[in-house]
């Protein structure tokens, strides 16, 4: 049975339900959020209908500038660290037997699906004074007395790398699986060391994948909303944390919505960039 164009109305019937659900429960909420970003804040309630740009004007304050700058910097640091760690790892993984790969994939997917709350709690335990690596360092004599390693930038960065690493591995996995192993073998036969072969053959062959992965992990890390809160100090809060905070604790929905619209635009621009990179790869 070949694919046929939809001709009659009844051909379109199966589409009706999912399309309606997606429009009503995704497009409309999204639209309302954009509208709310122009509304006026109402103390004690959600908002009053209005058209003001005051919520967007607050982007020009130094406070917002510093939060935005920090969010972008943090997401970039996470993306670079993750790709640097994941690239050799995924390359080794793709060389393993299928059985080993499946075991790894199960573990990686299980960690990827873990709640940010659980990841945050696990790392706060690991960095705590009484149950953490401080004890280990003290026992080894590297630290005088066990002390807590959080809150701090290092803790936030580590937690977020932990959260994003499984995602990075899964993004790189299909490309590395398809990479022709004879490329690396040829480099080895011609006398290149394994490291040299990896850097001069595998990395260039995958440059578009690597660029796309960097961007996708960057967007993923931008979305982290709890780890900076659990593992960091207020100066380590990111845009996502600030949006949650404004919406829930300050009950300033309009400002939260304006920041969310801003975050959508950044994310969409970056995802668009990925598609562009992907498109060029297909053309090449």
């Amino acid at each position: 049975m070949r694919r046929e164009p939809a001709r009659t109305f009844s051909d379109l019937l199966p589409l009706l339900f999912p399309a309606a659900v997606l429009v009503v429960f995704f497009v409309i909420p999204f639209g309302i959020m954009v509208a709310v970003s122009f509304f006026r804040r109402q103390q004690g309630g959600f908002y009053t209908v209005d058209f003001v740009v005051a919520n967007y004007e607050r982007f020009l304050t130094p406070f917002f500038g510093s939060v935005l700058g920090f969010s972008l910097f943090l997401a970039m640091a996470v993306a670079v660290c993750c790709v640097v760690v994941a690239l050799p790892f995924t390359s080794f993984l793709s060389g393993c037997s299928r059985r080993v790969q499946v075991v790894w994939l199960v573990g990686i997917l299980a960690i990827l699906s873990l709640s940010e709350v659980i990841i945050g709690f696990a790392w706060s335990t690991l960095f705590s004074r009484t149950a953490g690596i401080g004890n280990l360092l003290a026992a080894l004599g590297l630290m005088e007395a066990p002390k807590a390693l959080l809150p701090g930038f290092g803790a936030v960065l580590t937690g977020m790398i932990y959260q994003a690493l499984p995602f990075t591995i899964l993004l790189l996995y299909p490309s590395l699986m398809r990479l022709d192993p004879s490329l690396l073998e040829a480099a080895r036969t011609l006398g290149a060391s394994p490291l040299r072969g990896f850097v001069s053959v595998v990395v260039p062959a995958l440059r578009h994948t690597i660029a796309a992965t960097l961007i996708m992990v960057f967007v993923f890390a931008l979305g982290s909303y709890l780890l900076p809160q659990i593992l960091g100090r207020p100066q380590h809060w990111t845009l996502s944390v600030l949006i949650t905070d404004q919406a829930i604790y300050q009950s300033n929905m309009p400002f939260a919505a304006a920041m969310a619209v801003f975050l959508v635009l950044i994310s969409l621009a970056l995802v668009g960039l990925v598609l562009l990179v992907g498109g060029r790869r297909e053309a090449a």
Partner: protein
Amino acid sequence: MTVTWLRRCYMALVAFFLAAPLAVVAGVSVNEKKTLLFPPRGFSLEWYTAIFTEPEWRGALIASLGLAALSAALAVIVALPLSWFFWRRVAPWARVFQVLGVAPFMLPPVITALGFLSFWATGGFYGAPWTAVISHAIFFVTLPLVTISLGFSSIDRSLVEAAATMGADDRTVFRTVVAPLIAPYMVSGFAFAFVLSLNEYIVAYMTVGFTMETLPVKIFNALRYGYTPTMASVSIFFVAIAVLAVGLVARYGDLPKLMGAWTGEER
């Protein structure tokens, strides 16, 4: 040989990094007293039974399981006709719905959460438990959409043509040929959506956070008031559920192939 050895070392290091926090939480969860100590002092499974015996944890667990089961089922119900349509019909304009199905998963979660908060608040349903079911179903519809689409693309079209030549209409073809072939993919999609919904925090918090506590919300609220060992046991319990669900998908499906579909590169 040193190269193989170095590879193994590197993979072991990554494994250690991924496992360390969970191992420490597992250790902490069996402390005999209500302390945050590692290595644990004494051994007790009391905190695991507490998940089921303490009313507030049990309530949160039941809320989470109900939410996850219902929303994952709804996500599959939405994704199935959509992927069937793309498989059966040529309609380039309908791709917009595919983009809509993937978008919630690609964007930072806080955005979808805030969208739902504005939507339900405007509609006057803010806080009703069923709003969380719909919100999670939309948020995770991507997963069954990707797995079921992959299922359809792996169906040998000559099978379907044979059935059609023998006089089966669309409905009969679906029931007798298509449905059995894509059933494992539906189960995979359901399992992924279920596990992610179970673990999801921000959408659940922004839609029903003040009326219903799911487990991640409960853990976070408890975390703000200090430490209780039940957090550790619940976390390990959740890790076990995730491993079990993904393990089942791996057992009955093709995980490496599913992961190829994940990034949409194998189409």
